[in-house]
């Protein structure tokens, strides 16, 4: 596998290092000459000391035969452009972009970036997991505006004691698994939901309100705890 990594910051550096160690062919592009030279000293001559946003250099680095281009600079707009150039100009089969502003995830996917890595979203996700909120938890965003959502059922959830068939679930949404005592099982039509269950659903983001109503309860934010 030939991987072209653009951006020699911490993420790009360790990504390149790991890929080299697992035997892949890797080229790293880093526009800062001093930083590029430093990486050459450590990882060998696999660094192109130029700006990966510039079409000419992206071509010189071999993007037209790359299997994957990973744009992991610190700037969203640079990562978008690198991926789009790779995808549409050099026909790279798979592009990966690091995204800092979670609002950009959607746009990037829509504009032809194949995979999104969002450190902000990941940190947000793990913070949300630690807070016992009366909220739906977003586990992952998929193509076509689909999301994987988790709902942890509290004692006051209207779904407790019911089976999935008792619930009004939007047609474009499906509840597919339940995590109980750390064990994940497929959600069957006769599964009786209990307090503490984590129900995993997949659906469009506009189903959220109804899902919230059915699994968490009415009222948007944290309800007054009784």
């Amino acid at each position: 596998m030939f991987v072209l990594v653009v951006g020699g910051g911490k993420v790009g550096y360790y990504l390149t290092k790991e890929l080299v160690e697992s035997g892949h062919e890797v080229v790293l592009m880093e526009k800062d000459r001093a930083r590029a030279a430093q990486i050459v000293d450590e990882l060998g001559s696999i660094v192109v000391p130029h700006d990966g946003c510039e079409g000419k250099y992206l071509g010189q680095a071999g993007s037209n035969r790359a299997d994957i281009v990973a744009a992991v600079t610190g700037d969203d707009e640079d990562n978008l452009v690198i991926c789009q150039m790779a995808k549409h100009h050099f026909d790279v089969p798979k592009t990966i972009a690091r995204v800092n502003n979670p609002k950009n995830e959607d746009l990037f996917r829509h504009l032809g970036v194949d995979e999104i890595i969002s450190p902000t979203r990941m940190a947000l996700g793990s913070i949300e997991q630690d807070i016992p909120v009366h909220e739906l938890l977003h586990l992952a965003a998929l193509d076509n505006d689909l999301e994987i959502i988790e709902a942890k059922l509290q004692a006051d959830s209207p779904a407790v004691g019911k089976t999935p068939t008792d619930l009004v679930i939007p047609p474009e949404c499906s509840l597919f698994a339940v995590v109980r005592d750390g064990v994940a099982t497929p959600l069957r039509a006769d599964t009786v939901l209990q307090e503490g269950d984590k129900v995993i659903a997949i659906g469009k983001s506009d189903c959220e309100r109804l899902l919230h109503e059915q699994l968490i309860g009415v009222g948007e934010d944290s309800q007054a705890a009784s």
Partner: protein
Amino acid sequence: MKLVIVGCGRVGAALAEAFDSGGNEVIVIDTSTRAFDRLSGEFKGEAIRGDGTDEDVLRKAGAEGADAFLALTEGDNRNVMAAQVAMEKLAVGKALAKINDPVRAAAYAELGIATVCRTTMLTDAILGYLAQRPTGMPSVIAPVPHVHDDDDLGGGHATAAPRLGAQPVAGAPEA
């Protein structure tokens, strides 16, 4: 018509004033309020401080549904991204990005964004002055009409710049 200009540099400010005095609704956005010093006292449009690649900022500024959106900051990629946000999320009529890298400029025209490339513009102007043959690369490139969507663009267009007639957009701006 309603016009949004991101980047109040020399070109951005000059265009803002030209359209403003022509009786159009003009919104100028820049990350630095100092940039607005370039606008004369007669400018009646709106000058808003903010990041022009941020959908929220653009929406709040009233960019939605603008007839034209011109991304003219110093950063090629910022311009590209701002123009794409405008096209995809804010339903603007026309979006144009200043892109100084000729390869990127040609590539983005294929993705539906009009581009202006100062590099080819200046190169050709100077070659012309010295009575040399111009590069032949268009400096203002109209977007290629969308055939289908995204991936249908695949196919061997490794380095071929689209040879579209250089269609001047509202009077080619000076660099």
